[in-house]
């Protein structure tokens, strides 16, 4: 029997609805509307986590994801990996899994979640391309309507938000519904495996920090980062040595 969060299957479906709504909204906020950065992993994961009952767990996932995708920039027609879809899906899968396993979000669960769901960042980029192709059809419709004398022809603009919303909402709901499998895997891990997964999460942090330094596209960035890192380590060691 797969472990379920407190409240059983109805609670799981409720969490799926919450994840679908927040995940769908984040997909349109990312590029199509507002761009207040509510869909960045560092914001989205804690918000979605809060919606599902564990904001702190969301933050644990959101920060490394933010650092990993800090350098992804949508310049002109180029598309970066979709960090928002990954953050939403990962939070949607890992938080209910932590609730079901009664462990909360911990490093081993986060590492398994990331390993399984990381391809969604790439898939999200493909999805965005498909959405853009659909938007070209909307543009052609607007051109035809304008040529026919319709002054509200451009109102079809908002229809471009439907596909990203629907796709992200569906993916997030599915992630919640399969989260008991993740909880089951987490509970079956032996201490050695948990230790290995904890090490994997530390390594993810290391790659995330490297990505963050690369994201600062400045030739002085590596030297500045190295000096600052050495200073922080030295000060921390000195404080700990004194205490």
């Amino acid at each position, binding site marked *: 029997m797969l472990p379920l969060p407190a409240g059983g299957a109805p609670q799981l479906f409720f969490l799926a609805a919450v994840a679908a709504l927040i995940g769908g909204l984040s997909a*349109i906020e990312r590029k199509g509307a507002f*761009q*207040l*950065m509510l869909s960045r992993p560092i*914001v989205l994961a804690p918000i979605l986590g809060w919606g599902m009952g564990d*904001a*702190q767990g969301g933050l644990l996932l959101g*920060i490394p994801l*933010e*650092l990993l995708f*800090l350098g*992804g*920039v949508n310049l002109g*027609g180029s598309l970066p*990996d979709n960090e928002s879809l990954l953050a939403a899906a990962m939070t949607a899968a890992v938080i209910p899994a932590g609730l079901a396993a009664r462990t909360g979000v911990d490093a081993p669960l986060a*590492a398994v979640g*990331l*390993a399984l769901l990381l391809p969604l960042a*790439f898939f999200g980029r493909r999805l965005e391309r498909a959405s*853009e192709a659909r*938007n070209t059809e*909307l543009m052609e419709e*607007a051109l035809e309507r304008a040529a*026919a004398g*319709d*002054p509200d*022809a*451009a109102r*079809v*603009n*908002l229809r*471009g938000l439907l596909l990203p919303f629907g796709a992200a909402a569906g993916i997030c709901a599915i992630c919640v519904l399969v989260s008991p499998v993740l909880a089951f895997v987490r509970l079956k891990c032996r201490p050695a495996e948990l*230790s290995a*997964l904890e*090490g*994997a*999460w*530390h*390594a*993810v*942090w*290391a*790659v*995330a*920090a*490297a*990505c*963050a*330094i*690369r994201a600062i596209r*400045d030739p*002085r960035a590596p030297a*500045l980062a190295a*000096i*600052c*890192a*050495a200073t*922080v*380590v030295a000060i*921390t060691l000195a404080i700990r040595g004194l205490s």
Partner: protein
Amino acid sequence: MIPAVAMAHPVRRVSTPTLARVFLRSLFLQAAWNPRGMQNLGFADAITPALRELYPEPAECAKALARHLEFFNCHPYLAAAILGGAVHLEERVAGGQAPPEVVSSFKRALGPPFAALGDGFFWLAIRPAAALLAAATEPFLGLGCVFVFLALYNAVHLPARVWLFATGYARGEGVVDAVRRAHLASGTALLKACGAALAGALAARGVLAAGFPDRPFHALLIASTMVLAWAILPRLGPTRAVYGGLLLGLALGARFV
């Protein structure tokens, strides 16, 4: 003395509520971003309320709308300045003081340089710096770091967007000079330096978390992983680097206890 042209076509003005609607619609500029026209549909949708007021005749309004459905691309925030400027110029076109081509030329001329300016300042400087500061303050502020990120970023972004739109509308082509005086480019360098220092602090945090209380070897391994990842990231890309990191971490982590 009133010029003859202005007497023949009285100046038409867009009302303040309509300008507010144009601005609000500009927040959906990229809703239907497409590879052929890029932000054209969003731009046309945003300017529609102004066009409807300036051209009460539907056929005339649709004709004006058609010229905004041509290719347009810019940074989504800096585009507010071009949108404001386009409304300003449309007032002149509707009043017969300028030919319709002036609007298209204005958009074409300002799109690429404003895009470069916005990308450099917002996407490559302030967003990474705000996110890194939030991540660095997480051990002290907990969930409060999320508000640090949102407050820092949006305290700059939202007023900038409103100012750009208002300045564009008030000054038309003069918006170029106003944006030049905003010194966005000089702020970019400072923000990048802050970002680099914060990224270093976060790297130190990762090393310390792996190394304490008594695991200096682990700290060394994590620091080495960081340097290795930094070196090979351009060739590997983040996805493969993460999988590489996970595998390495699994192998090393089995001996972490």
